[in-house]
């Protein structure tokens, strides 16, 4: 394992009077596939540039493998960055692209050529060595960029939304490919994306950012099962939201008075009676009921039904927009009309103090 850990200690980044990254503490373990997930403009690239050394934080320290990195330029850091637009050198052949880092280190031509060919084989690009980047497809260019970054044997590989330019099929394929390369090399990957699906499928852990603030750092499972803020709850996966005021608190559960009646859920924030609160419940934990009742049961107007292949999304009207019921498509389609009874268990619902939601 040649990956190294990365630590941000009380890091703040300001551009003039604008604070792009608020005080942040973040530890990324050696050999981890770590994603930074957040909407556009939230400061993801800024964090990456602080780790790679293109900018130094206004406050705080960046450590890689325990060594203080402030003031050290990108060339001297054990990192390699894959740019959002890849930034391949279009006038060099692909192997020369891959070998550029070795050329910079004074490796003899024959030797660096061999190494470049090896790396291109590693990323599955045999036979394309003498072509130029512009003669390759999007996915192939991607792999040249990966090979070029790996050539300098970085301990930390930084990837700035490298898959966003690819079409869906290729993106899914490249996700698996990246994961495989990460497993083979043991390098720490810091992967930036605004696609939560991408982050969930690839990462060991994820940091979710919003407007310069890291809202939550957690494993993929925890992030999905236990979102800590309303933003994370709605940005990562889908969540149904019901709003109201807390009327009762009991045994770690809270009861929220909503337009749909009193709803019980886990009192995650330890909120108190009278607080404005939101109840979050995943669409797959929300059930269309016929007869049997769950902890929270209420009636809503049916809106429409979207078929997503293996799954069906049923939409119901509520005061805060739509409530979605996510059902497996078992071929037992019933026509729905008018009012329907839906519900969910209190242990599947999370109550948080009201806050900003993701607008996606």
């Amino acid at each position: 394992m040649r990956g190294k850990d990365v630590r941000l200690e009380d890091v703040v980044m300001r551009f003039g009077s604008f604070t792009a990254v608020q005080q942040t503490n973040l530890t990324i373990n050696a050999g981890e596939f770590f994603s930074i997930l957040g909407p556009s403009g939230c400061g993801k690239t800024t964090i990456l540039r602080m780790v790679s050394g293109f900018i130094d934080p206004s406050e705080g320290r960046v450590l890689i493998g325990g060594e203080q990195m402030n003031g050290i330029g990108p060339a001297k850091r054990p990192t390699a960055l894959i740019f959002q637009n890849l930034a391949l050198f279009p006038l060099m052949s692909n192997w020369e692209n891959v070998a550029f880092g070795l050329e910079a280190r004074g490796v003899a031509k024959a030797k660096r050529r061999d190494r470049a060919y090896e790396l291109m084989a590693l990323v599955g690009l045999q036979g394309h060595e003498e072509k130029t980047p512009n003669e390759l497809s999007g996915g192939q260019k991607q792999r040249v960029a990966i090979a070029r970054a790996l050539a300098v044997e970085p301990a930390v590989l930084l990837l700035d939304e490298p898959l966003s330019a690819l079409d869906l099929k290729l993106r899914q394929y490249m996700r698996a490919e990246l994961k495989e390369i990460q497993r083979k090399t043991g390098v720490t990957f810091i992967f930036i994306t605004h696609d939560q699906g991408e982050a969930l499928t690839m990462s060991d852990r994820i940091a979710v950012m919003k407007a310069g603030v890291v809202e939550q750092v957690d494993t993929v499972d925890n992030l999905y099962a236990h979102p800590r803020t309303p933003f994370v709850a709605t940005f990562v996966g889908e969540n149904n939201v019901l709003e109201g005021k807390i009327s009762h608190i009991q045994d770690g559960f809270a009861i929220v008075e909503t337009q749909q009646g009193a709803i019980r859920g886990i009192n995650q924030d330890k909120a108190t009676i009278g607080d404005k609160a939101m109840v979050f419940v995943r669409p797959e934990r929300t059930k269309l009921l016929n007869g049997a009742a769950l902890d929270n049961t209420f009636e809503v107007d049916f809106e429409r039904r979207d078929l997503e292949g293996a799954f069906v999304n049923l939409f119901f009207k509520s005061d805060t927009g739509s409530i979605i019921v996510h059902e497996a498509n078992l071929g037992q389609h019933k026509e729905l009309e008018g009012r329907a009874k839906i519900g969910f268990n209190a242990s599947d619902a999370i109550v948080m103090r009201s806050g900003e939601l993701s607008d996606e």
Partner: protein
Amino acid sequence: MNSLIRSYGKGLTGIFVTLTAFWLLLLIILPQAFMLDQSLWSIDKDDQLGMKIDRAYSDLGLLEYDAQQATGDTNPAVQEKIDTLKEEIATLEAQETDPPREYGLQNYTRMSSLHFSIFVKSIFYALAVTVLAFAVCYPVAFTIAKLATPQRAALLMLGLIIPYAINELLRVYAWLMILDYQGVINSLLAWMGVVSFADKTWIPFLEYPGSVFVALIYAYVLFMIFPIYNTVETLDKNQLEAAQDLGGSVFLTHWRVVLPHAKPGIAVGCIMTFMLSVGSYSVPQIMTRGKSGDWFSQLIYRQFFETQNWNVGAAYAFSLVLVCLAFILIMMKVFKVGIRDISK
């Protein structure tokens, strides 16, 4: 052509094509063809021609006198002699008024060794100016294009252009004043006590060919900076960062990434600077005031306007055109750029 007709109709297309053809003919083909023609012939003037005509006239006078003496029976033999002599005079006079042109390469091959050495020297100097201008301009162009903030880049560009609003002659005179015996630099040196005007120990900058270099570089920098700036500008900043991230030194980054990208601009800049400086007349004329060796352009000027030998002048001028063409071809070869890249 067909697509032109489709988008603009026959009438407009006709006008476009005619105008282009006219422009080509008027600006490119006609003057060069004229120059080429002029350079390819010479008049082999017979120095004795005037004397021969004079002698023939006096012979004619004598014969006519003889003919008059022999009144009555006019001697047919004498009359015949008079006729042939008159014919001879007519051809001689025709030769004088409309001398026969002798076509050939003599104007080129007969260049004196002095002129030829000036020719070679001028080319060499122009090459040196081009190299120096490139050395000065590349860092400037790169800095403006990639390191300065957009506002500062615009200001710098403006600063570079403003001097060009002034007539070229005045700009060169400014340098003359700077480099003159009692010019700005010598005054500064005198003030520092290094030289003294009274003892005439000033540094005679203007007598060095370097002064022409300085003025030529100054006169033509923009033609080097602009094309390079334009190409460097289009380089993706991420490529510079990628090179830096991979550990590329400043030299390697420029050698492998920036320079290859800027090739077309460099080629254009070098071609323009070379052509302008090899053909520059006013700059060497003003800067040397005849004190250091001739530039070839001055020589050409003299062939036309002092020696009045247009044929040799045309041959010299055309030699320069050939050199420029050769330079363009060499640049295209060296920089592996095509006409297409250059005309961009």
